[in-house]
């Protein structure tokens, strides 16, 4: 046994040494220096607005760049960004943006209307391969240009009338177009900088690296260490710099949610991207809790293949939908971090409330299943539910499997699939029931309802209804008022939910831990943050918040 002592000593020595030194946490240091330490989820793909997609990238790009409009952090209504004002003409088909003369790139160049024409050309160019090119499709001829049917960008509906005036012509009045101007795929990039490192359409030049990148947002890139952190400094050229309180932000890739929560606990982060489900009750119970939950523009649902037995029968689909006790699922499995959903569009999508065509009704569900020819599950041919590997999806699937078994007497096999295999199964429609989620790109029912148009890229269910297509694609865009438009959407959605090509499960919420010293990270429906409103207040600590 004598050997144990020296071994222990060797290992405990460094431990003890460090225990003696008092480390200052990131949060304490950050509060003093005005630096926000931000847990940002996954490692970002990159920083090029026309190349990358994803939530972590969104946070980074929106700190570095600014669009023509920005969303109000609370109401999400468009506010002036690079454009100080805008005017509508021809019933909203033509929009003229007047750029702020103070809007500058980080190298001091003014942001011009010509920058937007060049950038939208890049964003839409068939060779760029921009996954979000469709964000600009409401613009006249944009879709044709992106598909290569129109080869001259001059035919696309965007013109620089002069250095500070940008005129955009749309296919049809598009109520949500101003919102799209706050999406990074419509942002301007600095053409001279890009051209210094390659062609306009190149996807992989080093123009976004530290020292190379020129941006126009509230912050500038200071440090970019792969898988470690991305540091930004307050911009000295940003037009609204007086409003920016932070001196800088450090973004950390925090893939492991359990680790992220622990980093927050030892004050290495001001804010986390998510919160592990199991930790939520504990945080909720605290007074002045660091836990912040807000409705989120996204729906969690199960896709149904309407062309395979037994789910080709609408009564089976309805029976499956009605036999799920969403209230119980949300309460026990999801710790009340979601809202039961009975339709695809989240409630209060800019004033739109979806229809509720059914409710939890096991009695009626059993009856429907009997009518479909499977009384008490007799003769049931089996059903497979697939989901991509993920703890939360597993939990929901396991609970759903049991509910169906208990209420309907039907056996369901559940299988998790590795992410790309799952995507392949869904796009090849090689499934019976598949887990799915949709997060809105902009706040408008259209973003959810056009998923299910015939042969839509994200439809994947085989659902096809000419009446539905007509309402969503033809009638709604021509509606004169918001009320009329919403009424049409309501009608379409009612029709959709009666056919039940999907089983809505719940509406998402956004969940973060935010240190008490942080103010101005407003929760909103898009979980869209604008760091320019964030202020830090030293002296407020986690302990103090808990003891109050």
């Amino acid at each position, binding site marked *: 046994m004598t050997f144990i002592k020296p071994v222990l000593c060797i290992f405990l020595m460094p431990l003890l040494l460090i225990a003696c030194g008092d480390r200052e946490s990131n949060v304490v240091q950050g509060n003093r220096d005005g630096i926000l330490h931000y847990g940002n989820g996954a490692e970002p793909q990159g920083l090029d607005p026309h190349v990358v997609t994803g939530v972590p990238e969104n946070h980074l790009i929106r700190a570095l760049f600014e669009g023509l409009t920005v969303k109000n952090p609370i109401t999400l209504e468009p506010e002036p960004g690079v454009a100080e004002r805008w005017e509508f003409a021809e019933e909203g088909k033509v929009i003229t943006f007047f750029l702020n003369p103070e809007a500058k790139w980080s190298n001091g160049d003014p942001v011009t209307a010509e920058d937007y024409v060049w950038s939208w050309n890049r964003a839409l160019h068939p060779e760029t391969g921009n996954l979000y090119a469709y964000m600009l499709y409401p613009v006249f001829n944009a879709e044709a240009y992106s598909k290569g049917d129109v080869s001259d960008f001059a035919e696309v509906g965007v013109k620089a009338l002069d250095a500070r005036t940008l005129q955009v012509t749309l296919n049809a009045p598009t109520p949500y177009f101003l919102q799209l101007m706050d999406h990074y795929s419509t942002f301007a990039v600095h053409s001279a900088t890009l051209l210094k490192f390659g062609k306009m359409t190149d996807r992989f030049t080093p123009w976004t690296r530290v020292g190379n990148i020129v941006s126009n947002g509230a912050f500038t890139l200071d440090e970019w260490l792969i898988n470690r952190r991305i540091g930004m400094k307050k911009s000295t050229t940003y037009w609204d710099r007086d409003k920016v309180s932070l001196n800088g932000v450090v973004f950390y890739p925090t893939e492991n949610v359990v680790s992220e929560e622990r980093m927050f606990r030892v004050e290495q982060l001001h804010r986390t991207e998510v919160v592990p489900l*199991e930790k939520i009750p*504990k945080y909720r119970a605290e007074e002045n809790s660091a836990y912040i939950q807000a409705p989120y523009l996204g729906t969690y649902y199960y896709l149904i293949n309407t062309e395979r037995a037994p789910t080709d029968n609408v009564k089976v689909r309805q029976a499956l939908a009605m036999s799920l006790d969403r209230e119980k*699922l949300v309460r026990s499995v999801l710790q009340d971090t979601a809202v039961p959903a009975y339709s695809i569009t989240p409630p209060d999508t800019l004033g739109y409330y979806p229809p509720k065509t059914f409710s939890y009704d096991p009695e009626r569900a059993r009856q429907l299943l009997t009518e479909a020819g499977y009384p008490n599950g007799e003769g049931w041919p089996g059903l497979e539910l697939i989901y991509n590997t993920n703890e939360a999806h597993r*939990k929901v699937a396991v609970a759903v499997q049991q509910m169906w078994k208990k209420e309907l007497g039907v056996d369901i096999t559940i*299988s998790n699939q*590795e992410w790309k*295999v799952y995507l392949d199964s869904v796009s090849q429609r090689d499934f019976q029931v598949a887990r799915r989620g949709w997060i809105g790109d902009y706040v408008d029912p259209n973003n959810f309802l056009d998923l299910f148009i015939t042969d839509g890229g994200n439809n994947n269910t085989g659902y096809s209804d000419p009446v539905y297509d007509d309402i969503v694609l033809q009638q709604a865009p021509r509606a004169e008022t918001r009320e009329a438009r919403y009424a049409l959407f309501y009608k379409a959605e009612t029709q959709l939910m009666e056919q039940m090509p999907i089983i809505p499960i719940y509406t998402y919420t956004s969940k973060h831990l935010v240190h008490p010293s942080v103010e101005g990270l407003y929760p909103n429906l898009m979980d869209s943050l604008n760091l320019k409103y964030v202020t830090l207040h030293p002296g407020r600590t986690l302990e103090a918040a808990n003891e109050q």
Partner: protein
Amino acid sequence: MIAETDQLNVFDEAEAGSSLWHDAWLRLRKNKMALFGGAVLIFLVVIALITPWIAPYNYETQDLDLGATAPSLAHWLGTDIFGRDLLTQIMYGGRISLAVGFIATAVALVIGVTWGAIAGYAGGRVDAVMMRIVDILYALPFMIFIVLLMVIFGRNILLLFLAIGAVEWLTMARIMRSQVQSLRQQEFVEAAISLGLSPAAIIRRHVVPNALGPIIVYTTLTIPSVMLLEAFLSFLGLGIQPPATSWGLLISYGAETMEEFPWLLIFPGLALTLTLFSLNFLGDGLRDALDVRGSKD
């Protein structure tokens, strides 16, 4: 002296094998720790076999309103977040884990020992080619391999055993080869060669039994790591699917909630630890029992 013993065996081939195992059994019987380990393993296997008849609850039945509860009279080991009885889960999980552990390891053992013994014994070109094949398999990206298996063969529990066995045999082969290489130069093997025994007989009778020590040890280590690998593969979608479960999966779920519901981690962890310790005591006992030279002291 050593050479003598083995030469005797050479002369009396028919009995040599059986007497080796017989002697080993006599020695093993004296090792209390090893016997204890063996008894525990047998107990676990028996429990696994009769689980469907003795499990206290149905392993699928949920009670969402109950949720995760600490051990109580109704649920001796507590319940998981779905309100399912943990003891039942562990019992059913043991069926999968023990099966995967033993079968996959057996696959790895057979391939690895054969491969390593042939390579080590043959030496030269054959050795070089065989060991380079091992190098190649080491280097192939495991994850892609798994995904492909999944797609080609679909989800199948047998496939899981094969996939794991196919990966685990590599290190086994390397260890076996290095053992055989050093044994080949020893007097008793050279004596056997000079007596004109066929290489297969020499490998089977003299080389493998003498190299068994490290192999047994490595095998006892492989079984628990295979059980954990199974959890990882099941996670990726190869192997078992909910509501079926295994110790590896229970442990990985438990690890996520170790602060909130520690029993969900501790009990499956104990089951795995118990198996591992039993295996190791038994493995050590077997190693000592089979050690021909050590026994001559």
